[in-house]
């Protein structure tokens, strides 16, 4: 019998492949390493954010603060590198510590004060955006030579594609996330929490630790996404990345993860990101379409995938076999 979460993943993958083939048949030049490389580079920060979001959503929560955390990270780095002589790597570490602690704090509030994640992370969103404004209201350029060094790390593929470091970081994050979610006890606990927190507690899942770690991961990855974004734009701007949290949520859902938690794959999120990136690329290639079509298509896709989830969920419970068929004796 089919397993519905897997099936959702396969459908997302098939959607991507089909969409890519259709685009490529219209614009054969899309079938190049350049397009693929840009797809990865342009979506690196969103991809990283979506990894964290996958953890959070799988556990039955939501994190609305990530967009603000990215903006804060950018401004934080830009200001530090402008005003102090700190090496960027040290600043990176410092930043990751701050955003991870921030995520952990939100997780603690959610767990210990039993507040809905929606409210807590909404507050976190305003807080981080506000902090970014306090640091600087203008766009602060980053001119540190180390940034040029990082930007120069490229692998030139045959066909003109330039695979940059930040795309690599994103892919690495997905691989690590996959291992964590499927091959560690913590990962299974994330799913357990999303299935039912009450049941998970009775089954011995350390709810407090797991919840806090999940939001810490979300915060940490948003910080990493902030670093990547600052490398990508060479600047920090407190008004940047507004609404990125919603794009990340969309990618997670298109990737086949149940918004109510407990079911889904981080690999699906990866394809969700690729699908969203592909739509944008298609619109660029077309040239005549307004970029708002991206939103419209993503909206349609979201709707389709939510309907699909419903249908799949219904199909699994429907096919329940009676106990007698599985008993060895009788």
């Amino acid at each position: 019998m089919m397993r519905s979460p897997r099936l959702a993943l396969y459908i997302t993958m098939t959607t991507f492949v089909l969409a890519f083939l259709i685009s490529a048949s219209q614009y054969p030049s899309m079938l190049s390493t350049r397009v693929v490389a840009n797809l990865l580079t342009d979506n690196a920060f969103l991809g990283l954010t979506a990894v964290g979001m996958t953890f959070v959503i799988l556990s039955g929560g939501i994190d609305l603060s990530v967009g603000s955390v990215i903006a804060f990270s950018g401004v934080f780095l830009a200001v530090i590198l402008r005003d102090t002589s700190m090496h960027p790597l040290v600043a990176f570490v410092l930043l990751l510590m701050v955003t991870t602690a921030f995520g952990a704090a939100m997780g603690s509030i959610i767990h210990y004060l039993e507040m809905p994640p929606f409210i807590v992370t909404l507050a976190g969103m305003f807080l981080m955006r506000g902090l970014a404004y306090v640091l600087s209201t203008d766009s602060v350029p980053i001119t540190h030579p180390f940034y040029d060094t990082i930007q120069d790390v490229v692998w030139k593929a045959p066909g003109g594609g330039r695979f940059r470091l930040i795309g690599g970081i994103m892919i690495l994050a997905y691989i690590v996330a996959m291992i964590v979610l499927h091959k560690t006890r913590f990962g299974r606990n994330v799913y357990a929490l999303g299935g039912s927190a009450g049941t998970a507690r009775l089954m011995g899942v350390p709810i407090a630790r797991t919840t806090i770690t999940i939001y810490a991961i979300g915060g940490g990855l948003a910080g990493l996404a902030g670093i990547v974004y600052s490398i990508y734009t060479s600047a920090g701007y407190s008004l940047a990345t507004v609404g990125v949290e919603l794009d990340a949520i969309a990618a997670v859902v298109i990737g086949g993860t149940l918004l109510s938690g407990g079911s889904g794959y981080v690999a699906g999120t990866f394809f969700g990101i690729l699908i969203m990136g592909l739509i944008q690329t298609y619109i660029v290639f077309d040239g005549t379409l307004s970029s708002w079509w991206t939103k419209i298509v993503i909206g349609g896709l979201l709707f389709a995938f939510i309907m699909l989830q419903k249908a799949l969920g219904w199909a699994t419970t429907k096919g329940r076999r009676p106990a007698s068929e599985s008993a060895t004796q009788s």
Partner: protein
Amino acid sequence: METQMKPILRAKGIDKFFAGAIALDKVDLTLYPGEVHALLGENGAGKSTLIKSLTGAYHRDGGTIELDGAQIDPRSPVESQALGIGTVYQEVNLLENMSVSDNLFLGWQPMKRRLLDHREMHRRAREILKGYGLDIDPTQLLSSYSIAIQQVVAIARAVELSGKVLILDEPTASLDREEIELVFSVVRNLTSRGMAVVFITHFLDQVFELCDRATVLRNGCVVGERKLADVSQGDIVELMLGHHLEATKRRAKQSSPGETILSMKGFGKRGMIEPFDLDLREGEVVGLAGLLGSGRTETCKVIFGVVSADQGSAELSGKSIRLSSPRTALEHSLGLCPEDRKTDGIVGDLSVRENIILSLQARQGWTRPLKRSRINQIVDEYVKALDIRLASPNMPIRLLSGGNQQKALLARWLATEPDILILDEPTRGIDVGAHAEIIDLIERLREQGMALIVASSEMEELVAYSTRVVVLRDRRQVRELRGEEITTDRIVKSISQGETAA
């Protein structure tokens, strides 16, 4: 002998208070190695609360616990599990969104090079479940298996995790005879290895079959501890209820049923239930007998339109109708009290009052709210009639004891005053006292001219109230028993022989 043995677990003076209620009042519980200890009591007596207080799922307000002579103070189920006390809770079972292996091994998965070893996990899961007589694919989602299998998986997990004490809170409520046998043999096997098992149930037959001793609770107090070899079922019931209970017997006199109100021809649904004919008359109770998975529940669901039939026709009082959804069924004055109250019926966070009037309000339409005074009147009436034990009708229904939730669900459907009422396992998880009350209630409703269809796995119960008994097997109606034919023996025979037509 036993008294000279050192107890494996000794709980003394356990107290537990809830807002507005004393759930446990200085409760003692002593377990010896190698015994099966029954924990008995009416619905709401405090059985589930006691084990939750012992295992740290609730924080107890007083008392001491000794395990193997040493004081313990588990603050969470994890802690008590690590100490050797494994539990299968009554209401919450496992995670339906995860695979069978995940459920078995959550928190103690086999590791290889610091990562989970899925292959080993699946292999061992398969092996463990074989020991329980289940040959299933553990990589599948738990939700793809029936409730009975899920229950066995829950038991398997608790057994694997605990070493000293295993607590089973109504583990057999949704199992059929064969599966109960399976669980019993596992329990016996465990006790022969020196484990102590606490067994909570409302099936007194099972208590006497399996258990050595029993502790009886009433209103949160221990009213007695007995060796079961020394007492009779009647003694235990008297202890539980505080008064004597008449044995349920077949009502000799039965008024003759009235006109046919619901008539189904060739009604069925592919893959769920073979087409059947059924005529239902006013003032009769049609019992549905059969093993678990024989199609009892499916029959109820098809009639009520929970799954719509794909063949056959139905007539209500001579007019042809389509029973395509619960909504239409409700409009035609049908009611269904489902089997699995946790997933199909109870809205946990709503108050008891809201849960009771839910269907009535739904039929009336949400734009026309019921009057407050009328609601209170209805709720009070049924709380009293069914003896639902609660602190206040305003409390969230999930805080009620399991059996009282079941009664509240029954009240919901009675409140709609249906012409036809379908009850699927109405007495599951209900104590002996309330059991008798519900049988009386069915009798009363029948006398008032209501038509009832009652599915039950308890033969005595069917014999007590049925005008006719339809026997199901392999999702097919195999026989119909009437009048004098309705005896436990005949039902059992028809179930096992199956083929012999009437």
